[in-house]
């Protein structure tokens, strides 16, 4: 199959205009002995054959809609995506456009990003949002870059909550390996401590405190005191937040957070085996010049029409080159659009329904699971739609037993926290019916 729309006759006419005889003649600048390697790849398939091949591969997976009952979350959540979302994403005008460098003919993308920025700031209680990052983990790493730039490298300490998603912490370690930072707070052994333990670690050398909301174990804390303490020492605070929980919970902005980031996958983006997702990044207006990523601002055109452009581009790599805060070039434009459509079509009330269903079903599941002999909630704190279940056997064994019965029980926390052997992180969303929850409970009763 080819997508090249040029006939042999047209090709020959074009070669003549160029002044060469054959296509191969165009490549004489390439070292002759390396030219035209034979590639060992499967032979080309037609569209019909490729569609069948891919369908086979996809169906050899067991998915969480048709094959498995899932209580797996831990950073990616199974939510309902209204039909409208994908219909809009499939518009070629959106998905086959580039970054809106030419605003006169990119107002669709630009206004959509402007609205996304507005939706996210209203959700998080912050003042500005950029046009998005690769995912929640890299958005959190960019918060570290912001803090580093804010203190011009003079403060080099991060106070890291151990209950920030372990993958996010790993990405921060990868990203910051050239900066000479010290990270305290998430050493082994203290990972179930609450935020009060972090407060004593904050000092005048601290550039950033990072906490998660609800935390990786699902616990809800009011971080106001922690944030006040950080501000007294002059440190910034980044809150990694779950957007579905923010529909219901007090905003990090209200608590005084300086930066609120997170993974917006729960808002209209399929699980897709982990990506692409959508990292959101919101902050206060005073930090906007240190923020990475694209930013859309309102203006007018020469005809007096309200319109939108990429703005504050002087922060970015194509102007500042090696002095840029970040090398980021793309955003997740199309998925930011999906997120906006999701929020718009559910609207204020629909979103509240989603959050309420998650909350109610998770609490039903927690209550029923706690009634089983040997099982119980590990933590007393309030939670939203995810909680840690203490199990009588290692969580890995519990999961294997459940998988044999077609159920993904949750996330085995010993994967990242070796001394949490009997700790299963259970997520419940609006997608889990009471029947599914009852099935989980019945299976564990029989285990």
């Amino acid at each position, binding site marked *: 199959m080819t997508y090249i729309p040029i006939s042999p006759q047209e090709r020959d006419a074009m070669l003549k205009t160029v002044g060469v005889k054959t296509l191969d003649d165009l490549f004489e600048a390439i070292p002759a002995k390396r030219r035209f390697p034979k590639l*060992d790849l499967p032979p080309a398939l037609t569209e019909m054959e490729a569609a069948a091949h891919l369908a086979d591969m996809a169906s050899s997976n067991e998915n969480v809609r048709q094959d498995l009952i899932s209580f797996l979350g831990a950073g990616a959540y199974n939510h309902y995506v209204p039909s409208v979302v994908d219909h809009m994403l499939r518009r070629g005008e959106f998905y086959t456009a580039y970054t809106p460098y030419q605003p006169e003919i*990119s107002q669709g993308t630009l206004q959509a990003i402007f609205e996304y920025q507005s939706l996210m700031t209203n959700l998080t209680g912050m003042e500005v949002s950029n046009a998005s990052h690769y995912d929640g983990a890299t958005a959190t790493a960019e918060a570290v870059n912001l803090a580093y730039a804010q203190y011009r490298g003079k403060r080099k300490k991060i106070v890291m909550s151990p209950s920030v998603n372990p993958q996010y912490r790993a990405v921060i370690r990868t990203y910051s390996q050239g900066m000479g930072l010290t990270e305290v707070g998430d050493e082994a052994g203290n990972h179930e401590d609450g935020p009060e333990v972090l407060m004593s670690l904050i000092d005048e050398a601290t550039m950033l405190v990072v906490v998660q909301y609800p935390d990786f174990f699902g616990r809800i804390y009011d971080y106001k005191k922690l944030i006040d303490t950080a501000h007294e020492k002059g440190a910034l605070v980044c809150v990694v937040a779950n957007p579905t929980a923010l529909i219901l919970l007090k905003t990090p902005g209200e608590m005084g957070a300086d930066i609120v980031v997170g993974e917006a996958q729960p808002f209209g983006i399929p699980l897709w085996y982990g990506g692409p997702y959508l990292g959101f990044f919101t902050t206060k207006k005073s930090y906007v010049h240190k923020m990475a990523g694209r930013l859309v601002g309102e203006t007018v055109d020469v005809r007096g029409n309200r319109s939108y452009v990429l703005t504050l581009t002087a922060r970015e790599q194509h102007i500042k080159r090696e002095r840029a805060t970040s090398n*980021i070039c793309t955003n997740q434009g199309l*998925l930011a659009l999906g997120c906006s459509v999701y929020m718009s079509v559910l609207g204020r009330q629909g979103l509240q329904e989603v959050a309420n269903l998650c909350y109610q079903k998770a609490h039903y599941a927690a209550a029923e699971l706690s009634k089983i002999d040997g099982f119980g909630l590990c933590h007393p704190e309030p939670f939203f739609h995810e909680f840690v279940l203490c199990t009588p056997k290692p969580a890995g064994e519990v999961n294997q037993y459940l998988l044999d019965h077609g159920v993904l029980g949750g996330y085995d926390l010993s994967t990242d926290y070796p001394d949490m052997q009997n700790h299963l992180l259970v997520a419940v969303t609006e997608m889990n019916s009471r029947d599914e929850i009852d099935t989980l409970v019945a299976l564990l009763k029989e285990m």
Partner: protein
Amino acid sequence: MATIIEPTIFELSSPGRRGVTMPASDVPTVDLPAKDFLRSELPLPELAEVDVVRHYMKLSSFNYSVDGGFYPLGSCTMKYNPKINEDTCRLPGFLFTHPLQPIETVQGNLALMYEMQDWLKEISGFAGVTLQPAAGAHGEFTGVLMMAAYHKSRGDTKRTRMLIPDAAHGTNPASVGMLGMSVVTIPSDSRGNVDLKALEAACDDTVVGMMLTNPNTLGMFDENIEKVIKLVQGCGGLMYGDGANLNALLGIVRPGDLGFDVMHFNLHKTFSVPHGGGGPGSGPVGVSQRLADFLPSPLVGIIEEGDDETAPLYGFVNPKNSIGRMKAFHGHFGGGLVRSYTYILMHGPDGLKDIAQYAVLNANYLQARLRGTYRIPYDRICMHEFVMEGHFEGSDVRALDISKRLMDYDFHPPTNYFPLIVPEALMIEPTETENKDTLDRFADALIKIAEEAKSQPDLLHNAPSTTQFGRMDEVKAARELVLCCWLPENYEA
């Protein structure tokens, strides 16, 4: 007061209007957390489904797109995105698999990733590939981290300088800056190649390596590429290839065979992942044998070998000296890898070579048609793109004016003002998916615009005039910094 062509989603909101509703709860109701834990208001829009659809349809009509027309944006490879990719990446088995599922339940995904790693190795001539990076710049950062880790592992700690040609994309120096290394700019020579004398003078034992885009951003394949690589590696440096322009090389030459140590792929350029108005992209990275142990973790590997009857068991493996994790989970699987996998599968080895050949033919055809009307500073057979100067003697018309005027002819402008080494640069990349008629219409328009620049320059200065929006006041946007559109009076608590 500005005229509003389409209100924002907030302005369209009306309290009490409903879109998609959710089912009633099927579990007993419990109390919400104490009021102290809850937000007091949720200032988000309220609309009906039809309001939402009309709004976004209206916005979509403001966009120029590859589906709508010719988009010759240099170095962006705005090729046609096959529709079948949109279907394969949305197969339920891909859409609805959770990234933390047990590997036994996602063997289809893992097999696809394993094959994709192999295919990218084969196409590029590298020994190892990571699929984790989310975009080209992310891949660059990954590559530079590996280069730093390699030197560090050898106790070679004085290497802090990265050589970067003056024609390079801004992400190259920015990636280096993220690691606190310094940048040494290497000039280009009169044929658009790396200046060998300058390179030789810069090569010493403090060099981390060189980041080279080849073909470079002038659209030129470096005629001395093997000498360049030899010089850099001769002083102990590593050779980084920016794969932004790989579309010109598919089946033509493998960067690994030329001696490159590391290169990122842009699946959203070369392998037809749609650009999505700025993303998501996908930026896998290939490396030579000596860097393979430093790849990000995890990679997809075979955990248990298969035989004639059973397929192998795929799972995750961690390279020995891995630089660590670059993002959560496994890369841009659905939107990136599945689309590119479909694309490579449908092209095969010969089809991939055709892509490069016709991409290069189309660029050379346009260059031949515009030569004589526009100055082409590096005039030789180009690869998939070429750069010409958008200005004329005795005229105050600039590249920007030509770009804006092209919109009146219903074309997307080329990349302008890049690369920085060409004055008033217009960088044109037609890609292989344009037919001769389109290329001719585009060349005709540019020739006509060159005449207009002399006879009616105001047509260019005031362009575009036929589009829905005219030129924007960018100064106002940066000065007033209106980044958000909350209208709280529209909301009831």
